[in-house]
């Protein structure tokens, strides 16, 4: 038994793969906070990822696992399945790995499965409506807060 607390980059470089639990709701409903586990494979130098791949990249000290929605000449536009705004022009250099497979609870999920492909297409198709709904909800919340605050 070997317990490793090396950094993600070190593990990816040494073993080519990294397994971890995801934290947060930005990729919900696909990945649930601290419940699902992901397998990340390292990306080789010069490797270009495809639209809808889910890269692991670094922003400051934080590691982010979100979905590519646009492939640019030297980077990507990326957004979490449950996020409202995309992160533009994430450079190739910032990407340290890409999602290879994941477990939802104890069920292993393949990225090549029909159900996964359908999920991705449906999430992307519904994205404008989901974003509009979230923005409307946030706006109404602010309005109610302001009205209550006036009393």
């Amino acid at each position, binding site marked *: *038994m070997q*317990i*490793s607390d090396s950094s993600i980059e070190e593990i990816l470089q040494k*073993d080519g793969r*990294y*397994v*971890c*639990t995801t934290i947060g709701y930005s990729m919900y409903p696909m990945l649930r906070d*601290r419940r699902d*586990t992901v397998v990340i494979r390292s990306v080789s130098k010069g490797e270009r990822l495809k639209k809808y791949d889910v890269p692991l990249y670094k922003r400051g000290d934080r590691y982010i696992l979100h979905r590519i929605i646009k492939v640019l000449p030297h980077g990507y536009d990326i957004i979490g399945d449950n996020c409202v705004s995309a992160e533009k022009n994430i450079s190739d250099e910032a990407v340290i790995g890409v999602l290879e497979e994941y477990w939802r609870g104890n069920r292993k999920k393949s990225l090549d499965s029909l159900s996964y492909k359908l999920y991705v297409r449906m999430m992307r198709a519904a994205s404008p409506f989901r974003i509009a709904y979230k923005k409307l909800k946030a706006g109404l919340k602010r309005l109610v807060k302001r009205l209550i605050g006036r009393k």
Partner: protein
Amino acid sequence: MRIKNGFVLRDVAGQTMVVATGEASKSFHGIIKLNPTAKDVWLWLSEGKNEDEIAALVCGKYDVAEEQAKADVGAMLRKMEEAGFLAD
């Protein structure tokens, strides 16, 4: 003695790893790599077997002397205990 809730075993590209989920992931952020024997010990422990039973199973499966199996299983369990993976 049992494995705390939240530690899950994953087979990835021929390597067995254990990662923490749920509450356990708040205190343990690393990865545990298991060789085939360690994987068996982990699984038998998950099934509720005690140290002596696991040592006997290791003896039977891997054709090692009883004393050696007891020492190896004991060492692994102590390591797991020290790392905080076990509960009473």
